[in-house]
């Protein structure tokens, strides 16, 4: 595998003036953070602005260039970076730039339908452990097969949204027309093929736009196509080895894996580009008399496999909550920094305006358990204490089974954080999943245990009913 540069490789190529413009104490501190991939090179402004550093800049850009190049689609705040991958396995460091989800829009929609579709894409959201899950971009499909319609709709799109756009057509004339109209929005062009490389490559270089190389069914062909586009002067390339679903899914997973292994483990610079998956292709097999849910089901499976196996950008059609919740969750999970601690600190947390009559609940210190419970209590807007028991970062169910959450442990934690001094009652609400140890906990701690809901989403209702106070 390519060895990632260390601070001592990076330091000599920095200005060495310790100017602190980047926000770090000195150049060595910046070099260290660069090596950890927690800062970006562009934060070192003198390197880019002062001509005397031109040589250093060129060298350092080469040195820190990830084995999978990073490509930006779109402009402004909503521009999305894809690729920039450093490792094959997330446990080797972390994955950067979560897979971007581009949702399709056909170019032959009437004005009203077009606006409605854009709105639906932009507004799709879900709150997940404190963050808003969102989609990322819009893939305009040249269904009309008419260059003028395609270009006009592209133009309309830019008036309706400032989200990144991908222009999708295998017809070079279509791409030429639309690229010319919205080149300043930095759309991603889809696609150059083994037949159209000369014309489409020229459109990309002319407008300086990123371009997808589409050569399905053969990684040799894809290598040849990329090699040729590079010779034409196309620098920002995205790879599409083709997406097959159902019986072809293994082949697709295998192609994606080979591409990424080749780029990262074998340092095959020719294919060190982001990879595009097109789960939308499942709709080609959709039969009209069939329930669309079946096709959506296949789209979710195809997309999930590609999120796991190295897709940097996906083109999707479905926009339902039931299809896109699992996809956005999966993406969020796999792109989480693996060194992120599994546990939060034990202790007594206060929510709202707590007093001596406030309820006391307890949970474990597994980060996901804690944040989920925290978010439910906050959303309910109740005043309550939450005792966080150290279970070595295990969820309630696992901790009970693995004996990390025991009656003794709960009693000790009640003592340690002096909960009895904070409230006038001695009632402790247990997670429903810990019902098994509640009897024992009463004996050991001397508190009265009430078994709360099995899922913390039930907390607001449970507290509202007030049963916990009843003798």
């Amino acid at each position: 595998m390519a060895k990632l540069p260390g601070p001592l490789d990076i330091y000599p190529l920095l200005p060495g003036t310790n100017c602190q413009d980047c926000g770090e104490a000195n150049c060595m501190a910046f070099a260290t953070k660069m090596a950890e991939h927690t800062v970006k090179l562009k934060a070192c402004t003198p390197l880019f602005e002062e001509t005397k550093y031109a040589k250093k800049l060129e060298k350092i850009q080469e040195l820190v260039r990830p084995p999978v190049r990073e490509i930006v689609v779109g402009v402004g705040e909503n521009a999305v970076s894809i690729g920039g991958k450093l490792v094959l396995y997330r446990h080797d460091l972390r994955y950067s730039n979560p897979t971007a989800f581009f949702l399709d829009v056909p170019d032959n929609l009437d004005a009203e339908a077009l606006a409605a579709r854009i709105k639906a894409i932009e507004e799709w959201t879900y709150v997940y452990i404190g963050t808003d899950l969102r989609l990322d971009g819009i893939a305009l499909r040249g269904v009309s097969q008419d260059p003028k319609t395609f270009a006009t709709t592209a133009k309309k799109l830019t008036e309706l949204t400032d989200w990144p756009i991908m222009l999708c057509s295998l017809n070079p004339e279509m791409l030429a027309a639309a690229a010319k109209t919205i080149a300043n929005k930095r759309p991603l062009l889809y696609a150059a093929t083994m037949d159209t490389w000369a014309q489409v490559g020229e459109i990309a270089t002319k407008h300086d736009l990123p371009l997808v190389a589409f050569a399905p069914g053969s990684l040799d062909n894809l290598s040849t196509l990329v090699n040729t586009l590079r010779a034409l002067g196309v620098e920002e390339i995205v790879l599409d080895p083709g997406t097959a679903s159902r019986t072809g899914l293994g082949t697709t997973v295998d192609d994606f894996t080979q591409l990424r292994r080749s780029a990262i483990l074998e340092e095959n610079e020719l294919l060190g580009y982001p990879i595009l998956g097109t789960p939308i292709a499942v709709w080609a097999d959709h039969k009209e008399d069939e329930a669309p849910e079946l096709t959506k089901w296949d789209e979710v499976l195809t997309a999930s496999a590609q999120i796991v196996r190295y897709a940097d950008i996906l083109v999707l059609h479905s926009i339902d909550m039931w299809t896109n919740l699992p996809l956005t969750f999966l993406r969020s999970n796999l792109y989480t920094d693996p060194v992120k601690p599994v546990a939060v600190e034990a202790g007594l947390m206060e929510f709202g305006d707590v007093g001596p009559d406030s309820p006391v609940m307890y949970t474990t210190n597994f980060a996901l358990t804690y944040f989920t419970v925290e978010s439910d209590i906050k959303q309910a807007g109740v005043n309550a204490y939450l005792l966080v028991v150290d279970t070595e970062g295990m969820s309630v169910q696992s901790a009970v089974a693995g004996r990390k959450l025991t009656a003794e442990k709960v009693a000790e934690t009640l003592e340690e954080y002096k909960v009895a001094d904070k409230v006038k009652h001695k009632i402790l609400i247990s997670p429903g999943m810990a019902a098994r140890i509640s009897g024992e906990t009463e004996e050991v701690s001397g508190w009265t245990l009430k078994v709360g809901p099995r899922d913390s989403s039930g907390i607001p209702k449970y507290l509202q009913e007030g049963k916990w106070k009843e003798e």
Partner: protein
Amino acid sequence: MTTDKERTTSLDDMFGDFAELVLENVTIELDELKLALRPMVQQMAKAVARPALEMPKSLIPASFKTPLGEYTQAIQEITLGATKGQGGTRGNTVTIGGHTAPAWDLFQSPPARPPIIAADVFDMPISLAKMVKMHYKEVLDDPAEWAKLVVDKYGADVVTIHLISTDRQLGDTSPNDAAKVIEEVLQAVKVPILIGSAGDPEKDGPVLVKAAEVCEGERTLLCSATVDVFEDIAIAAKKHDQIVLSWTSIDINQQKELNRRLFEWLTPEQIVIDPTTAALGYGLEYAFTIMQRMRLAGLLGDKELRFPISSGTTNAWAAREAWMNKPELGPRELRGPIWESVTALALLLAGSDLFMMMHPAAIKTVHDLIDWMKERQKIKPEEYPDWTTMTIPEGA
């Protein structure tokens, strides 16, 4: 002005000209000269090559080299169940593991033994998500009928009978009562069966020891040995030739340690590992990464991690998004099973070999996925559809 033809003169020729030219005027050693000239020549070459490549007339061929990995150890093969001829009573056996490459790296080697699905069966009515329960409501108080249903109708490869009524909080039934349930399930189905204990630290040992005894000859999987309760289970497994599920909680070092302890009694043919499955959205990444690391470590020679991996995929239903009755999140008839399916798919790609599951649609989906992924297909370029022009029905 040079012509295009001259520009494409080979590098060697160019270098020759330069060397000659300079040698006429200066007296220096040839080696030194080459060193001094090289950067200049390279620059020249670049300048010359660029315009020549600007407009290629045809595709410039490049080939792709298959990125094979080097692995030194195969994952252990484990056979579950035993037929009459082998001393058991099962109609068939199933074998898992045996892999010589990371999961689904078909270019290297397809899975030696495709993963299998075990359907969960409980020995007493249990609280289940509504979308799961609706498929089992007729059989909730009859484990034998439950087992038949999952095999005959839902296509489970094997059955796990979870003896949860032995829990002191849930009925405190005796190991002998548990043995009766096991006998009933063995009678009801012909596929291999696996035995799950209740998770009660006082009862799990005695219950699994009894299970090992009544399953004599059946090569069952005893679920589970943990860092707290393992010795009695391992001894019983050794005595009655059973397999043990070595279950830890998202900790690779704990998994290695437990396996080291089990080695005192068990051979490598008797261990399956389970690092705990967390639901999609609720810690799945921990399970994913640990399974991926375990599979790689096993392939690279770690003797303590070279075992097939099991996943308690039913845990996917711990995610509220899977079961909550919230119409704005879409029909839970779909949301639930897709949640279990996607949880399984991620772990399938990480390297899990055995999936303990519940929802029939998720079981069917994972069977399909295994079937679709187990070998490469020859797909011609023209067979990939042009999705840029297709019409998708409105509202879909």
